[in-house]
């Protein structure tokens, strides 16, 4: 499995990661090595094996639909990069 420059650019875009131009070949090399390494899984036939999502095969626990959170807006916004009047600020998204 060998990833091209444009593959890496595509994956970085999907993951919303800015990658320096100069680093793309290094990522392409490392990511290709890792994909080749994980492809060793194909040595084993897993036809009919049930996929394991949880180590104890537990299912998601349900809880009563009760309000347990209280309003901590100020507390949470104290660590935000930019807020104003209780709102989180981001660059303009609608022209």
């Amino acid at each position, binding site marked *: 499995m060998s990833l091209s420059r444009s593959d890496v650019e595509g994956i970085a875009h999907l993951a919303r990661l*800015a990658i320096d131009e100069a680093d793309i070949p290094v990522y392409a090399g490392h990511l290709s090595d890792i994909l080749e390494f994980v492809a060793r899984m194909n040595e084993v036939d897993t036809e009919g094996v049930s996929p394991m999502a949880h180590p104890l095969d537990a299912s998601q626990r349900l809880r009563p639909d009760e309000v347990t959170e209280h309003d901590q807006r100020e507390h949470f916004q*104290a660590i935000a*990069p930019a807020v104003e009047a209780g709102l989180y600020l981001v660059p303009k*998204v609608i022209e």
Partner: protein
Amino acid sequence: MHRQSLAEQSRALRAREISSVELTELHLARIAGVGAPLNAFVTVAAERALADARQADEALAAGCGGALTGVPIVHKDIFCTEGVRTSCGSRMLDNFIAPYDATVVARLKQAGAIMLGKTNMDEFAMGSSNETSWYGPVRNPWAADAVPGGSSGGSAAAVAARLCAGATGTDTGGSIRQPAALCGITGLKPTYGRVSRYGMIAFASSLDQAGPMTRSAEDAALMLNAMAGFDPRDSTSVDEPVPDYAAGLNADLTGLRIGLPREYFDPGLSPEVAALVEKAIDELRTLGAETVEISLANSALAVPTYYVVAPAECSSNLSRYDGVRFGYRCEEPRDLEDLYKRSRGEGFGAEVKRRIMIGTYALSAGYYDAYYLKAQRMRRLISDDFRQAFERVDIIAGPTPPTAAFGIGEKADDPITMYLSDIYTIAANLAGLPGLSIPCGLVEDKPAGLQLIGNYFTEGRLLNVAHRYQQVSDWHTRTPPGFE
């Protein structure tokens, strides 16, 4: 007093031979003095520790102290601590002050333990050497040019250098056991779901588990007593009763069946480590255990399987870091997409970006079946190997990492070689089983680790076997030169 184990410090505190304030000051002085070159800490919380110690002394004076009251410990910087920065070893969270305590932190606080500070770690727990930290590598107390292991490298180094009585760590693929082995301490990864993940910054949620890192199995039992238990705030927490892990430490080992997986004594294992592990197993035989050769046939594929499952879950978990509500934000974003991309690109280091990209790729349309689904099927086979083994044996023994500590920089440019440092530890995470590492000797003055893996919820048995071994060996009492 820093030479004493956590259990001994606890006894001294309750006997009023030393106060918690004195014990806390002593350890804070070691952190700032002899410990400083190790770079084991991201944050030292001296004032808060002393205030908590004063409260602990009041409780002790009133005769209502427990096993951990007034005992100085440290937390891996992955556990959220209200009011004290939680960086997760990342530039992304360099300015992050959590608005709440992780359950592990709250429970240990409730038990009276004093938090001295937060320890350095591989960024977002992704690494086996502590070199991926935004705050620079931690040095191994046994050899300044060697890594302490990772990702809980700061916690391991702090315990080994006697900068604290005990520490917390987390283990997704070996991140408690491997650094414990490389620093010559005891580290336990409990059964998946035994300890709450609430407030523990997520890396790979179906694998992550918190545990104690200490000098001895007895100390680990005391910490686990406080850490373990059901937590309604963690949806994967298991509602099983918590035994007193200290109660069974001295149980007899006669008739204990130990499985030795032939795949764990492969040519990749250094002959020096193999000899020490075999010697430790001999010691367990002398204590009455029987050994049986077993096979974990798919174990060679545990690392490849892990490097699909863990990055896939990481890419999903780390999508929350968007530069909007908390954490790092890039300068002067042009638009929202630029804000996301540059905040993440600048906030994350190279290894984290690699894993996010592998995970994104493995989960992307058209590749899901070939990677993620395949890995989940492999995970079942790996887990079945253990299930079959535990029909014949009580515990499994082998090496923790295949070598003693390697040099700083030695594997930093080669991800796959680094990943293989966890070759014997990763399978237990995939299966969700408890595993423990204890020191079993020195290779050229650097520690080697013996790993014990148990069936689900047999932490007590693992600690019992480790404790009995530590009663007849002294590797766990050895202190790195310069830190006596």
